[in-house]
């Protein structure tokens, strides 16, 4: 992946030098070997901070709305899944197209950092990573490691639809074939099969752990409300209590509020400190959107209408 990093830095440098953008948002090495952190680069000298590899899980399109009213243009580094967010934000008129330079990087999958950290010697320093098809090799100053994708990747990457960005002004690296490891809605179908009582027990157990830190909401690239319903004091729709009913209310509302706009980037699921399988809620909605409205994943193509934001006489009418 060294060549990708090299090209990424060159392109970013060029954009900044030619004043085509004022800011480049990309991935930089984090404070753990297997983590990256968002970096905000505003000068050509800063581009050496940019990196790329199997530890770039964050969806940086999230930050675009922070700069929608700032002067100047922004370049953002996106993976395939993140690029769906960019399309969604454009379609929702959250940002204007001429303000954003999309640097797309075809993505071979992202590893779960905790799983990698458990194997690598603590304190080791990352030297290089490489994609070997079914696995990633990770070279460190304390030895080399190999992580096969099936066991170490984030779950969302096992069912990835778009390894290649669906929108990009600059593409870095070679296009990659779509490769999935399991049926996309396998987990959802399994849950759907359960009876009401078991479903209830399953979700009660998950929601009861919720701390209501709102990481899932705040990390969401399509959560773009200026004042969230959960922060409103007048009236207070959901209180700060973290009991089962309030938590359930929060999670249903959160999931449904992004229905039809959620691009299935899986960030909510990744960031949950209590490991609540939030993506199973959003995926249920995706599955139903497909079944009922024949709707593709939001953001997977520019200009596709949001299934719940448009009316068509052919829509299913379960409640008439």
């Amino acid at each position, binding site marked *: 992946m060294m060549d990708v990093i090299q090209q990424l830095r060159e392109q970013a440098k060029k954009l900044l030098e030619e004043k085509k953008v004022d800011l480049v948002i990309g991935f930089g090495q984090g404070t753990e070997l297997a983590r990256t*952190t968002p*970096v905000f680069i505003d000068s050509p000298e800063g581009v050496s901070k940019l990196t790329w590899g199997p530890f770039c899980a964050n969806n940086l399109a999230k930050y675009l709305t922070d700069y929608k009213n700032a002067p100047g243009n922004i370049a953002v580094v996106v993976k395939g899944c993140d690029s769906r967010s960019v399309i969604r934000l454009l379609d929702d008129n959250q940002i204007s197209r001429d303000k954003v330079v999309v640097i797309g990087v075809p993505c071979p999958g992202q590893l779960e950092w905790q799983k990698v950290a458990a194997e690598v010697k603590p304190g080791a320093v990352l030297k290089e990573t490489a994609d070997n098809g079914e696995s990633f090799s990770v070279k460190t100053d304390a030895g080399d490691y190999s992580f096969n994708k099936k066991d170490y990747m984030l779950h969302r990457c096992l069912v990835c639809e778009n390894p290649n960005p669906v929108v990009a002004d600059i593409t870095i690296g070679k296009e990659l074939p779509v490769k999935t490891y399991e049926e996309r809605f396998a987990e959802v179908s399994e849950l759907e099969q359960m009876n009401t009582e078991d479903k209830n027990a399953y979700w009660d157990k998950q929601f009861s752990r919720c701390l209501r830190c*709102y990481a899932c909401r705040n990390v969401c690239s399509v959560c773009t409300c200026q004042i969230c319903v959960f922060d409103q004091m007048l009236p207070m729709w959901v209180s700060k209590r973290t009991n089962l009913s309030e938590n359930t209310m929060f999670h249903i509302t959160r999931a449904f509020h992004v229905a039809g706009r959620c691009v299935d980037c899986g*960030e909510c699921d990744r960031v949950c400190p209590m490991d609540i399988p939030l993506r199973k809620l959003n995926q249920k909605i995706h599955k139903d959107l497909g079944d009922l409205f024949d709707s593709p994943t939001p953001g997977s193509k520019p200009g596709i209408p949001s299934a719940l934001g448009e009316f068509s006489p052919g829509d299913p009418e379960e409640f008439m």
Partner: protein
Amino acid sequence: MEARVVNKGQLPELLDKLAKDYDLIAPVQEETVVLFRKISGGKDAFLEYTNSDVSPKGCFLPQNEKTFNYTYTGDSIEINKPEGAQKAVLFGARPCDIKAITTLDPVFEGEKFGDEYYSSKRENTVIIGLSCSKVLSTCFCYAFEGGPCDGTGSDLLFTEIGDKYYVEVNTEKGKALADAYSQIFSSQGADQLAKDKEELAKKLAGEFVRKVDLTGVKELLDNNFELAFWSGDEQKKCIGCGTCTYVCPTCHCFDIFDYPTGDFDGARLRCWDSCMYPEYTLMAGGHNPRPSRKERVRNRFMHKLKYHLDRYNMVGCVGCGRCVRKCPVNIDITKIINDLKEVAQNA
């Protein structure tokens, strides 16, 4: 200092007994997450963890707490306070988390402004610590004079050595508990185990990989509120969630609000709150003294590294590393400390 020995094989029995005589709170595993819950016996406890996902501070400052029930018609007021805390044992908390409780004590048990809800739980709870057997890459308790086998704040401290636990008796409260279960707490072989524990502590102390040095940081912050550093990447990448504050063992901010259950009845509740939320400091008139992420991020780290020190002469961080692990965007307090130190050196 006194010490005891407990056979590992007898631990389930001890926990069963404690669960019978006290409210027993211990680490449990739910799916992939380790958290503290009230348990009914030894079989529920999960002790093979390094650092729980949520700290046990909730034993003393629960995320949700009722301060009283009320009946209010406008013409009459009736207030009913809940009863004081039950006798409880907090078992299996890690040294960093117990140290964190000692940083909460001056906030809630200050001479001038005590807190009956906190104090009642604190007085009625025996804290049994459990030394770490591993150091994570995110751990840095050593930077705050803590350590994987440090007994600060605990009534009893268990350290696993082979098939035994070496038990340090740190307080009278701890001694009373050990004496009450004397058939399990023996004194035989304690001297040898004490040496083994020293060895273990020394070995673990060498396993920290994070370099954290607070030299000069406090002085820098004392003299500089406005630093270009606070406008940098750390606040830009912060997404403003409350994860760091909710998993933090020393964060103690809360909200108080009423929850009506009828036209005239309800309860006043105290729930955790987070300084990272915009609404936290928003005043009724619309003014917000900390309107953007920059001020909120600065406030959080200033609180940890300066304000808590100013007020209570204790750093508001114990190096548990939870926020480092859990932050969605890898904002890392150790990096902030080191960056600030660099700023101080270059100033």
